[in-house]
């Protein structure tokens, strides 16, 4: 299976307008919060600014999530080949046709047929 990717839809124009309007509101409100002298009005503007800024950031985050590229992770699978006689061991990437207990090439040390002893993938830490 190929590790192909696809790009899904871009941000809709309506979404963009909402984000822009809330962002402008946030900037204006925060600017006003710094300008006015009355403490109550200042707090009001600061709260309005912070809220609208958070909202526009949330909307932007939502739209960014949808722009991610899709992939299907290819996991590394390894095959361990073991000589039953002398214990010689080799580890290599999995190849099509490998299976556990399959007889493979001869052992470079004692010329006995070696055996696939294990096939597994190494899971990442966070996977558990």
């Amino acid at each position, binding site marked *: *299976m190929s590790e192909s990717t696809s790009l899904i839809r871009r941000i809709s124009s309506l979404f963009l307008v909402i984000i822009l309007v809330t962002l402008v509101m946030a900037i204006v409100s925060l600017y006003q919060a710094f300008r006015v002298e009355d403490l109550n009005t200042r707090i009001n503007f600061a709260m309005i600014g912070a809220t609208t800024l958070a909202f526009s950031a949330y909307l932007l985050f939502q739209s960014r999530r949808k722009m991610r590229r899709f992939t299907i992770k290819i996991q590394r699978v390894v095959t361990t080949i073991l000589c039953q006689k002398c214990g010689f061991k080799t580890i290599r990437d999995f190849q099509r046709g490998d*299976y556990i*207990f399959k007889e493979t090439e001869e052992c470079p040390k004692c010329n006995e047929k070696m055996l696939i002893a294990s096939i*597994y993938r190494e899971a990442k830490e966070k996977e558990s």
Partner: protein
Amino acid sequence: MLPEINWIVQIVWMIFLVVFMFYGQRIQMWLMVKEVEGSLARLKFMRDEGRKAAISNITDLGKPEGDPTAGVDRFLEYVTLAPQNMDPSGVVWKLEHLLDVRDIRFKDEVKIMAPQADEIQMRNLENTLEAALALNVIYKVIRHFYVLGKKTWSFYIIMQLQMVLPLIMREAEAFASALKAFTYGQPIGDGAGALVAAKLMFGHETKNISQDIVVSKVDIEGRKAYVLKAEGPGGNVGKPGEAIKQIIEENGGKIATIIAIDAALKLEGEKPGEVAGGVGVAIGGPGVEQFKVEETVLKYKIPVNAVVIKEDIGDAVSPMRKEIFDAADPAIERVKRVIMERTKEGDSVIIAGIGNTVGIGQ
């Protein structure tokens, strides 16, 4: 700045509040719809990848004369109807018959699509197609509820869908990983039980018993153990219940104990590859095989023991992770301990390694 700006901001803010008061739920729903849309697009991508993988594998391995696309598309739309259970008596046998018919039909379809594939490749292709079919079904069901929710603009349909999606996505990701495992014939997590049986029967003579099941007679601590698993290395689960039943009948019910080893879903917080023991018939799937064993052991009053290897749904169908592979040896120790504690020398026991044996020989 002009003093009027204060009024403008105040008015805009008031409008903002009023809009949110009346349309807050709609905006929330709109955001949820967008989230579902994102997941649906990912499901579609996985479904398409599954379809592509199936087509390319059939073309590579089966060397069909024509384009297999139409055949694959037909396969992906395949439905299996559950038997009627208004009168539940005998429903297990009806279900078994349906599953047999489905199995034969799938095999025939794969044979037609990939005439040059050998027996092992054929089984792996069948499994690949089944994983692609599962992805197609998941995608279509989610799309159904998404479209229904948008059509009716029902907050509750969309909300339920959005709430359950993380779990469904995990399952879909697992099937997407399974595609590669089946394509290349790599062992999967579900084969943990089969791996344990394979390790026990390695080096012993095997013979076929019931559908796609092999059995070996192994001496374990002075007991005669019938060790069985699905015939590998092709993707296969066989009919272990039927095989166990047959061995019990052949021995006239004189079996001291049965030990079934299978992969089991772990709870969050448990480590993958943890081995646990217990009683009962550890055979997953639709339940037909478990039912057969339960019926037979009840007739002869045979104790049944279970050894399970814990893993999550993602691990079950994706290439076998190291922790699960490493769990095979502790599971064997557990099996031997059960034999030592529950049976005496000269007894006959059945050890059944359950699960898909893809990538595991014997």
